[in-house]
């Protein structure tokens, strides 16, 4: 039956039930993942953003919530602008490469 509107899926994130093994593994291999303060400089400068909505800030958040990051990551070109602009000095390229390496979802 069409009521002219639909209900969207709940976007509630229950941090107690989320599987964080991937994030913990990532932090083990690239501890910089923990110091991100989600400022979004990386998203603003990203070369891949216009094509796949790539945003490293979102990727780091999504990994902590165990959400799918593959579409975003697929267009990263490792150009390194995010590394250059990061105010926390995160080695973003290594973080992305590590994710490519350990991603198992």
């Amino acid at each position, binding site marked *: 039956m069409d009521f002219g509107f639909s209900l969207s899926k709940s976007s509630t994130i229950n941090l107690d039930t989320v599987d964080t093994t991937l994030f913990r593994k990532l932090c083990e291999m690239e501890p910089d993942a923990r110091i991100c303060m989600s400022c979004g400089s990386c998203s603003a400068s990203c070369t891949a953003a216009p094509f796949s909505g790539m945003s490293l800030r979102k990727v780091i958040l999504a990994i902590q919530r165990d959400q799918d990051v593959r579409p975003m990551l*697929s267009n990263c070109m490792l150009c390194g602008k995010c590394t*250059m602009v990061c105010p926390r000095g995160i080695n973003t390229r290594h973080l992305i490469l590590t994710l*490519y390496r350990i991603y198992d979802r």
Partner: protein
Amino acid sequence: MIDRIPSGFHPFVLPFLFGMVFVLSYCLFGMVRILWQLPKKDLRKFLLSLINPKIIVKNCWDILKDCLIHVKLWKRNKLLGYMHSSIAFGWFMLIVLGHLEVFLFVPERIHMFYYPIFFNYFVAEVGDVTIQGALLMFLMDFFLLVVLSGIVLAMIKRVHSRFFGMRRTARPSLLNQIGLYALWAIFPLRLLAESFTAHISGGSFLTIPANWLFRQFLGNDLNMLPTWWAYSIALCVFMCVLPFTRYMHIPAEMMLIPLRNAGIKIRDSRKGFAKLQVYSCPNCGVCIDACPMSVNRGNLKDCTVYLTRQMRRGNEKRIEEISDKCLLCGKCHTVCQVQVEGPQLRIIERSRRHYNLSPDYSNIDVQPMVEASSGAKVLYFSGCMSQLTPAIGQSVESILKKADVDYVWMDREGGLCCGRPMLTAGRFEAAKEIVHKNEEIILGSGADTLLVSCPICYKMFKEEYQLKGIRVVHYSQYFNELLQQEKLHLEKSDLCYVFHDPCELGRGCGIYDEPRKLIGKSAGIAEAEKNRAESICCGGSLGSLTLSFAQREEMTRAALENLYTSRADAIATACPLCMATFSRYADRPVRDIAEILDAQSSPVSEKNQ
């Protein structure tokens, strides 16, 4: 001169014979194995090059120049050059002259290949000395002296490397030390052995006085045999450890030169040509001082010399660490005497990693970008990094307008990366995909010139892109052409700049003079202590995958210190990455060459009015 021992044999030659047979068979086996590991196409190329007279001459000349005389080392460091060429060339001459002696005096023994080595033991001088004999004896003593002088220098170098202007050298492992001491022992023992025998076999200015001296207090011939035994054993030890030590570079380099001249490239980081390069590394440690990462004694064990060492040992963990950390600035390759391709070796090594995720760019539609790039003769590509330093693109655009060039800016609104960062990360397939996307845009635009301002992109366009009919030009070259055609009017400023050679532009593409010409025409120019091919990486390089921000800062500061030695008012560079990196810590302005040119130039028409 006659044969003294009728059988022409003594048991003391056995250790030498054993060592010789071992090392020769090992090298032969290794050679066949390396050729076997080459891809079929490369092998064919190599074998064909061996019958090309031009390459044969080049091979012989290069082997003489690099393996025996060490011309490159002489240019770099006179003392090191003398040390190496005295040992290598002196030893070579001793072997050649030894054969000549056998050939002239006891030709029937020429087939015994230990004879030239122990010649003085097996012969006796009777009657008058011929002029030939005296000359040969003199030359033998002379070259022995030359080698001994080299050995003395080598000993000094081991104790006090600063005497040679080297701050750091590689630390030899145990086997290397055994090889080293055996090598040191060979020639003094040979001198002793020949001296003890000199009253029988004859000698020259070195051996005869030594013989006389020893006879003053050692009045019998009993010392003769033990020293000959010791000489033979030292040779045996040296040759038996040679394949497992850095001295493997002696035979390996002789094979590396013909392969390199044939144009063979590294395809696999553990097999074939790469393996040969690893074995050709002489462990001299010149790359340690050259490496920008070794600033403040950090990362000392991550230089190319340690990469080749770990590759020989098969230490996977360290190989990965070393190959991921490198900035790929290419300086170790430039200073390397045998030209071990450290950066290339690392890039190929990185391609061995396994990733669960692969990038996929098929969703990117290039059609809008093709349309936005069409309609002009000159297509300007600023590169993605230039978006962080917008002044570069704006200045280039302003200059192009002043010179009235028909151009279009391909990635003004953001484009794709050139693919080089992906390539240097070892992900060749993904890099190729990006390359194809860009090729589509560039070829579809209808331009005949691709103007590039980022040296990273420039190197990539030059080496990896198939752009038929399109001229790829770096802006420093292009602006020089504009000035030559008098399309711009320049006014010289009194500021003085020091030019920092970006790695990818200088060592990567060999462009050193054009940016300097541009600066020289529009302002004053000074030179840093280390410039051109010796230029120090800014530390911001995308080559490194694992270096942290803090580690990079040290490198940037060291590179800046080098630029400050010029006492210039400002720093000029031609790379957006160098510019962004230096701007962070520099105590004086950092400008791109386009900015300098733009500030000093005006359209020709204005001048005429």
